[in-house]
């Protein structure tokens, strides 16, 4: 029963990841692509993490999986924000962001 | 197949097919369980891509990219040649060699990048003179 639930969650996660990738390929500009990627991919990651949580050997391992999800969320949000900011700056052609940037 | 196919051609093809198909008996796998590992041709293909990239690309940075890809292919070959241990863990000596290789490849890449940037600073070019003949690249 637990196994079937895991499989269902993983299938849903794959669906969300595919949706995010579809958005990446088909949406017109960077900002909307970031929107699709951060939302759909993070949800997909959360579902995948949940699926793995059901199979965790111990509470410590489950906590680690949860922490991984939170960190991936933070990293994804921060990098999405940074890319979007750079995009806006370039769109407005503000020249104060130097080229040798991360 | 029409009958005009020469005998030698089809005999050669069938021999080739048997050579390849015979290798598939053991199936794919992470190691050498059956004799054929998919990672051997993958590693060789990566080495091929890397070689082509280093020989044909114009910009120095692309050559460095290709160098890294080729290095990864060699590491893959290294590990694909060693069967996994009884508990599924790969050969520790190969792992240590690959770890060392990754770090040294990084050191070489970093030196190459620094040299490329210095060259760009001094000359404004991203290609070496002998590669500079052609269409815009970066």
């Amino acid at each position, binding site marked *: 029963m637990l196994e079937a639930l895991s499989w269902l969650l993983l299938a849903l996660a794959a669906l969300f990841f595919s949706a995010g990738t579809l958005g990446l390929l088909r949406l017109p500009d960077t900002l909307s692509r970031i929107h699709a990627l951060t939302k759909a991919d993070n949800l997909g990651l959360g579902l995948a993490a949940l699926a793995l949580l059901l199979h965790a050997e111990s509470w410590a391992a489950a906590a680690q999986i949860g922490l991984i999800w939170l960190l991936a969320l933070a990293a994804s949000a921060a990098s999405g924000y940074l890319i979007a900011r750079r995009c806006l700056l370039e769109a407005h052609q503000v020249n104060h962001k130097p080229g040798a940037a991360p | 197949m029409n009958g005009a196919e020469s005998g030698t051609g089809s005999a050669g093809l069938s021999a080739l097919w048997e050579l390849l198909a015979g290798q598939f008996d053991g199936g794919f*796998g*992470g190691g050498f369980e059956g004799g054929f590992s998919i990672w051997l*041709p993958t590693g060789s293909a990566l080495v091929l891509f890397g070689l082509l990239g280093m020989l044909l690309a114009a910009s120095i940075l692309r050559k460095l990219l290709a160098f890294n890809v080729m290095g990864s292919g060699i590491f*893959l070959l290294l590990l694909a040649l060693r069967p996994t241990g009884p508990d599924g863990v790969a050969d520790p000596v190969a*792992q240590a060699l690959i*770890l060392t290789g990754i770090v040294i490849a990084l050191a070489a890449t970093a030196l190459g990048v620094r040299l490329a*940037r210095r060259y760009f600073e001094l000359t404004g070019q991203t290609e070496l003179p002998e590669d500079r003949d052609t269409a815009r690249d970066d």
Partner: protein
Amino acid sequence: MIAADLLLALALLLLAAAALLARSVQIGSVLFIAFGLVLALVWVRLGAPDVALAEAAIGAGVAGALLLLAASEFESRRSGSASARAAGPRLPWPRPQRSRPRWVLGALALACAGLLLLAAQAIEPLAGAATEAVAHALPQAEIAHPVTAVLLSFRAYDTLLEIAVLLAAVVAVKAAPAPLQRPLPHDPVLARVTALTVPLALLVAVYLLWAGSSRSGGAFQAGAVLAGAVLLARFASLPLDPQSHLTRPPLLALGLAVFILIGLGAGALAGAALGYPAGWVKPLVLAIEAALMVSIAATLVALFGGGKAA
């Protein structure tokens, strides 16, 4: 498992080809980072988690970031020239306008790779010989994790030379004066996220160092995570500025120095260079690994170049 392996191999090859054929080196570098991550998955599939950690951190992360940084710098300085824009779609491969025969090179490369594949197929696998040898000698080495034992005990000389090579690379990189870095504008979101992430990264680095004695981990992976934390702090313009403190020569040379000192000193007690006296192995190896971690982190950060903000 066949399908998973096939998919991974296919993804690997596609990403490598895409990275090499990309429109610009920036795109190629990002694709290369993705390639590195898929390669890390392949390492896990092949049963090599240590290599997977190192590949993800060093191979994909540091190398990809270095290439991306350089590519962005080239791109931005070149974006002023109008002719670059007007030249139309940019091809990554040179057009055959010179007499250099491209197809000859291509055929040569193909022949080399084909020979390599044939030679690799012909090698008789020594079924588990090295694994068994290591497993035999492991209790004597008093280190629980085989890869760490190989790195720091059985083949410690290789690791010593590797650290020396890293030091040489850093010396060479520092010899070319770094271009002046304009200060990055302060970004509150990045600063806040970094303030949360950097301490966590430090914790992970120390954990990886500690875990290396009994599980996957070790000095290289820990050093890479530490370098990532320091670079993140620098990019976020945190008030600490650990980078300039970390990349001083004493810290860069610390790993090599400690390694040589302990290797020769303890070796004199144990009767062999780079050997350890029985019973003292764990603390000595940990001391060496700690020094290595600091040095590797300093080296990786120094390889990124660009010390003080102008």
